[in-house]
């Protein structure tokens, strides 16, 4: 029964042109638009050096790690042009827009900028990165590893060098997140066919002697397969046609894609079972949720992701699009896998919650009204 249902669910999905458009074509079309829109910006922005000021106070003077890091980022990597000055002059420079922002080392690092923009976002991420690396180093020293030398320190900082810091990569990450979540349209569509209170075919299958669990599993496996194929095509297209460099962690990228697709599948099942509306409305709701999630995770500009991280972090913590985007981000920019694994766990938890919420509706065989 599982195979019978899998086979026909696959046929149904592959014959539906609208579903195929959203699953296969739309992400690729959007990828082409991103490529056309951002490739020039990327190359021109790479030449810019961000002018900043650092308040040269006692705390900064004591902070050997940060001093070394910023020295390297201004000399070897040419990300920053740094003016070491006092607070008054820094304020003046910022006011005259001669610098993007200034850093004050006072019980940590305080960043002052005038507005939101690409340079400001880059500054913010670099500072965050240095701070987190500094914490690792501090723990290292605490544990008695006093022999940490400067080349190791440089190695850590290099990961955030200008060479890798392509902010348009975020656009492609969100594109993949969107594609994974759009898979929910497939699972939503196929789940509707199994619910007697939503669909005439659902009524027909409900009165058959086939077990509902087997029917659902076969259908969801088919929708997952189509979804993963769609995502694979997007990867292949962006890598080979748009020359997007996702880094070297292919197995982890595949893992993230598979689990991201699972999140999309579970979201689709939840929309199908929990929302009382016709199929078109449900599709609209699912697309809206996905697009909003992608927007908040930086699809239309990385500053949005940063702003949400800063102001409403919980929103991005429960946003599956951000979990996927951030997972790729973590793979690309971070040495360790902690942040990546955290996103994987979050996505699994999200999927589990969605499926648990849908469980009652999926299991139900008798209704108060049809």
């Amino acid at each position: 029964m599982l195979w019978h249902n899998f086979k026909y669910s696959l046929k149904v999905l592959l014959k539906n042109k609208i579903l195929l458009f959203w699953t296969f074509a739309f992400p690729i079309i959007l990828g082409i638009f991103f490529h056309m829109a951002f490739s020039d910006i990327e190359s021109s922005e790479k030449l810019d050096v961000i002018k900043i000021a650092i308040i040269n106070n006692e705390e900064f003077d004591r902070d050997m790690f940060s001093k070394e890091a910023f020295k390297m980022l201004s000399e070897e990597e040419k990300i920053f042009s740094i003016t070491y000055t006092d607070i008054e002059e820094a304020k003046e420079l910022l006011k005259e827009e001669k610098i993007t922002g200034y850093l004050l080392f006072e019980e940590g690092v305080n960043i002052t900028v005038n507005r939101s923009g690409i340079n400001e976002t880059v500054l913010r991420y670099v500072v965050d990165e240095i701070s987190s690396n500094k914490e690792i180093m501090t723990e290292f020293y605490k544990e008695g590893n006093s022999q940490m030398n400067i080349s190791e320190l440089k190695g850590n900082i290099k990961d955030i060098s200008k060479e890798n810091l392509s902010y348009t990569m975020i656009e492609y990450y969100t594109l993949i997140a969107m594609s994974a979540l759009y898979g929910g349209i497939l699972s939503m569509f196929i789940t509707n066919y199994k619910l007697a209170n939503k669909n005439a075919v659902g009524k027909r299958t409900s009165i058959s002697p086939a077990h509902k669990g087997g029917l659902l599993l076969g259908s969801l496996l088919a929708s997952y397969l189509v979804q993963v194929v769609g995502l694979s095509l997007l990867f292949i297209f962006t890598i080979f046609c748009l020359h997007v460099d996702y880094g070297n962690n292919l197995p982890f990228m595949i893992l993230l894609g598979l689990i991201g697709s699972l999140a999309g599948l579970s979201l689709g099942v939840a929309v199908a079972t929990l929302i009382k509306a016709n199929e078109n409305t449900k599709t609209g709701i699912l697309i809206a949720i996905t697009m909003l999630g992608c927007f908040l995770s930086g699809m239309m500009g990385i500053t949005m992701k940063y702003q949400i991280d800063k102001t409403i972090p919980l929103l991005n913590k429960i946003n599956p699009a951000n979990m996927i985007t951030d997972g790729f981000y973590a793979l690309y920019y971070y040495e360790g896998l902690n942040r990546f694994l955290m996103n994987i766990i979050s996505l699994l938890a999200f999927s589990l919650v969605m499926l648990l919420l849908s469980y009652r509706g999926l299991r139900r065989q008798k209704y108060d009204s049809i």
Partner: protein
Amino acid sequence: MKNIVEVKNVTKEYKELKAVDDLSFVVKEGEILGLLGPNGSGKTTTINCILSLLNINKGTIKIFGKIMKPDAYDIKKDIGVVFQEVAVFEELTVYDNLDYFCGLYIKNKKQRKEYIEEAIALVGLENYKKFYPKQLSGGLLRRLNIACGIAHKPKLIFLDEPTVAVDPQSRNNILEGIKTLRDRGATIIYTTHYMEEVELLCDRIIILDKGKVLAEGSADELKELANMDEKITVEVDHIKETVIEKIKYFKNVHEVSLERNTLIVTYKKGKNNLSELIDLLKENKVTYSKIFSERPTLNDVFLNLTGKELRD
């Protein structure tokens, strides 16, 4: 003949509306039972309750002598349902739709293929096997809907208004197909608001209104309830009140009514009612363009029982 379906004191309420009200009836093996009633009379709700798709507030339902439940798979394997709404996959061909739905019941591929071919022949879709549903006319689509419901050769078949909005050719095909199913030994529950269809097909008829049984019996038995044996309709050019009074005094006349130029005379029973009426009209020089006699219909029964038409 044993009872195939037993519905006992079933009540189904939607908030303040009783869609099915203390309904009880049985369906005997091999018979076609017609559930006749106007839209909203509770026919489809009754079927959904019997199929255990709907929660019921009260009562018991047995099929093949066993209590019907959503997980009564041994009962479900012998049931076929043709819903009022067309329940097929738009993305699958006629043959694939049949293979999918039949495959939910019949695992053996060879046997399934034979059953599907028989179902296709029964509904006359031999030339449309590779067509997609959107390529079919309304009538052909209804035929596919029926084939999907009966391809696995069920012992008990529910047909919920299968001829709604179909062309005469498809309608005849569907009705012939239902007769064939009956001849093969299937027990059928047939809901409709077309009285001609139940008269033509059903061995027994239950007239439903507001979720209650109004009357039950064969078509002839039910017509007894119409309180008349003959109805004569005359399209008159003009008729005087005195002539109408004379008609009323005829033996066996039950009721006389004139609406615009249509005179309707109903008789309790009797012979030669038509010739007697023609003679009277001639004597009184009443000219008419049309005159015809009818036996009472189930609509007349319904009208007599409820004061309203079946298709109101």
